[in-house]
């Protein structure tokens, strides 16, 4: 029996992703084998625990947060190529909004896959170019003159995306936005917690949306 597009994506996506897993692990493995340098357990363990205690839960929650936004095809790709919040999710969102396609549909899923794949190719090529040109590029990228631009990619991205969605669903947006503004203003060192706060924001906005929808205040 011929597989549907979605079944085919899941079948091939799994193979590609497991291949990526093997390749990613092969890098430190081959470096250790060929160079003969292995981490000692007493040094590896504390570093790993300090990292995994934060990033294992965060990256796990990210899967459940971002996959409904991205759809199947782009999820298999986006979680291999990384940089989800600053590149892949906004790229998918931009593509769907530009053509006025409903999210969570076959059409939305396919457009998101095209956007994420295109974005992945562009980013990979730019990084490869950056690697080749690292010596002449380093002083430019580290220059004090350009630093304010590179430091503000996130505000530039979420200012534009934010205003579109906040005005579209103002009643849903107001509670999570106020919560986050207070949280980040009040909690010391909160700047490093944005990855953890994304799923928190998602839960708050979903609860608010559900309550408003049930009360007939939004449609």
């Amino acid at each position: 029996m011929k597989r549907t597009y979605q079944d085919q994506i899941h079948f091939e996506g799994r193979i590609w992703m497991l291949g990526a897993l093997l390749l990613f692990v092969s890098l430190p493995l081959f470096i250790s084998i060929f160079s003969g340098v292995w981490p000692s357990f007493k040094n590896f363990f504390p570093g790993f625990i300090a990292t995994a205690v934060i990033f294992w839960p965060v990256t796990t929650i990210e899967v459940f947060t971002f996959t409904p936004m991205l759809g199947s095809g782009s999820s298999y790709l986006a979680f291999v190529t990384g940089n989800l919040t600053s590149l892949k999710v906004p790229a998918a969102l931009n593509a769907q909004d530009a053509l006025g396609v409903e999210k969570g549909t076959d059409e939305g899923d396919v457009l998101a896959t095209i956007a994420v794949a295109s974005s992945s190719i562009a980013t990979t090529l730019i990084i490869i170019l950056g690697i080749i040109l690292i010596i002449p590029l380093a002083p430019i990228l580290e220059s004090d003159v350009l630093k304010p631009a590179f430091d503000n990619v996130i505000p530039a991205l979420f200012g534009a995306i934010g205003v579109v969605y906040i005005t579209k669903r103002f009643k849903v947006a107001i509670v999570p936005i106020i919560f986050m503004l207070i949280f980040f203003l009040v909690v010391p060192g909160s700047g490093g917690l944005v990855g953890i706060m994304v799923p928190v924001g998602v839960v708050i906005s979903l609860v608010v949306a559900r309550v408003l929808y049930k009360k007939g205040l939004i449609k």
Partner: protein
Amino acid sequence: MDFLNVWWVYLIVGIIFLYVLAQSTVFLLKARKRALELNFTKEQIRKTITSSMIFSIAPSMAILFGLVILTKVFGPMVAGLRLGTLGALTYELPAATNVIKGVFGLDIGSLAITPEMIVTALWVMTLGCIPPLLIVPLFLKKISSRFDQIKEKDETWKNIMMDALFLGMISAFVGYVVAPVTDELTGDTYISILAILVLVTSALFIIIFGILMKKFKQDWLKNYALPLSMIASMGLALVYALLGVR
């Protein structure tokens, strides 16, 4: 890091980059074929590809900034690979710092960093953000079918829920913009007025582009309003900074 400057590291990193490019290309071609079946025009697909690539330029430049930092520990090949796949600078730098500073007590970029420290950091970075590579292949189909059930049950709620999902992410990053930052040199902690100004500027640009699209029928802007707003506001960040805003 000289021990990473050898042909076989270049070969492994090259293979991984080729793999990522191949996966992206295969998914792009499959999605394109499916998009044509769903009655998207070739022009719409071409514009989606072009605008997604143009949009990716500005955030990718910020990744290159991270590349310069991580190159000081891992060399450009390994640093580029770590930043271009799987994670992001927001994972890779803290993970590397947990090892180099947390375990060995040195700063990123210190000349005293040894091959053992680098290999330890690389293992921690690799295994520290591995869950998605296991969870997605194992559970994505189940997550998708559960999500499909919700969609089929109530179409109106599905649309609201999708917007709410994005708003959750957006709210976290809008809040993040007002988080106090600490100047590495002076130790001063302050709220970045510059970041807030860039956020507002970018929002204003996309509103202006929206007006141009609606009132003056500039439809070509649909695909490019977001990247143009980003690039314009990042450009103005340089002007604001020159005027003394921080």
